[in-house]
């Protein structure tokens, strides 16, 4: 499964990129499992993704809880809580 990953704000800064294409194994079924799997890609990924309580996610441009499925997803974004307005 090929996924377009997007990172924003300090998640993007810490990882060092705002976008990458990844190909997780089929047993990666939820956003949380994807975060676990991404954490092994680099020390920067591990650092950015360490504190789950500070992370939010969107699957195909809709906010989802971290236990949401990524089945069929094309684009997954990981970022801190939003602060617009």
């Amino acid at each position, binding site marked *: 499964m090929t996924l377009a990953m*997007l990172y*924003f*704000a*300090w998640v*993007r800064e810490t990882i060092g990129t705002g976008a990458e294409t990844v190909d997780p194994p089929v047993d990666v079924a939820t956003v949380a499992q994807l975060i676990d799997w991404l954490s092994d890609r680099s020390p920067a990924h591990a650092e950015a993704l360490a504190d789950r309580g500070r992370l939010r996610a*969107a699957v195909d*441009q*809709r*906010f989802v809880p971290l236990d949401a499925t990524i089945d069929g997803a094309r684009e997954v*974004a990981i*970022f*801190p*809580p*939003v*602060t*617009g*307005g």
Partner: protein
Amino acid sequence: MIRAVVQSEPIDLAATLAAVEGSGSGAVASFSGFVREDDGVRELALEHYPGMTEAVLHGLAEEAVARWQLHAVAVVHRVGPMAPGERIVLVATAAPHRHAALEACAFLIDRLKTDAPFWKRERREEGARWVAARDRDAGAAERWR
């Protein structure tokens, strides 16, 4: 009329309000949020999630139109670097009745703060930091659900 815009240029208050007022309604309300000038912020930079942001703002505008029978609504949010005193966001609503117009403005700005993917980074004398989300914003958005 529904206008939902994300832009890096300064927000044109007069043009946006004129468009909303052009609906011929009896009541028009607006809300603007600014980079505060009094708390030591030298620059505020807004990052967003292109595509999702516009869709969320448009969806909130449509929800407001349906809920308060608005004749017109505009939501304009700026991104990129901004100086103290500059306008970050403008919402404007036109309705047959004053309470509808004002309530819809409150709804739009409350929900925008929790539902739209923007992130603020502020630069102060002591350095730059990403602004933390506030629990009270989640509470303010909750009252509209």
